[in-house]
């Protein structure tokens, strides 16, 4: 039963995701105005030759800050998971 449901779900999702690959045309983006702006003006506005880095650190620098924060969060979380606990920190959950 469970296998059947799983199969059906996977099939539907497969159809949905394949629809995505059919709807878009590979190699020919429909619009490219934002990225063309980056390519044409990125170098003069930021001074970096690598447009990807320009985007990562200048145009979309805030995403990068968020992403560094994600890494920081993961480190804090892992540190909490493997921390050494005090003796009296046992709880009764039931």
């Amino acid at each position, binding site marked *: 039963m469970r296998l059947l449901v799983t199969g059906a779900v996977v099939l539907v999702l497969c159809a949905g995701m*394949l629809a995505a690959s059919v709807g878009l045309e590979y190699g020919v983006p429909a619009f490219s105005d934002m990225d063309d702006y980056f390519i044409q003006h990125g170098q003069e506005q930021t001074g970096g030759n690598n447009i990807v880095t320009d985007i990562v650190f200048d145009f*979309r620098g805030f995403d990068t800050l968020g992403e560094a924060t994600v890494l920081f969060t993961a480190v804090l979380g892992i540190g909490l998971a493997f921390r050494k606990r005090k003796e009296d920190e046992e709880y009764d959950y039931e």
Partner: protein
Amino acid sequence: MLYDLPFLAAALLMVIGIATMLLRRNLIKVVMGLSLVEAGVNLLLVALGYRGGGIAPIFTNAPQDLMVLPTVQAMTLTNIVIGIATTALMLSFVMVIYRRYGTADADAVRRLRG
């Protein structure tokens, strides 16, 4: 049909990852499935930005030519780092669970229910 290959592969990777998460009971396998889904999304993102005959958007030593779209690459970079952060966090959880429960079987890790 060969033309859309990267999109097809990305979709298939996502579906394979989802199937792994649903069908496999080991928690590490579940996390691996998640990583597969993430890889599929990354591939989709990068493939979306490809322009036929384009070159990488780096002006150092590049021939003057059409360039592929750079924004998706920045997004993919971000997503890769987010991916390893989540993967590491979840694997740590799995390790702690194994130490407390003695198992990493999703069907057995179910003290919270009802």
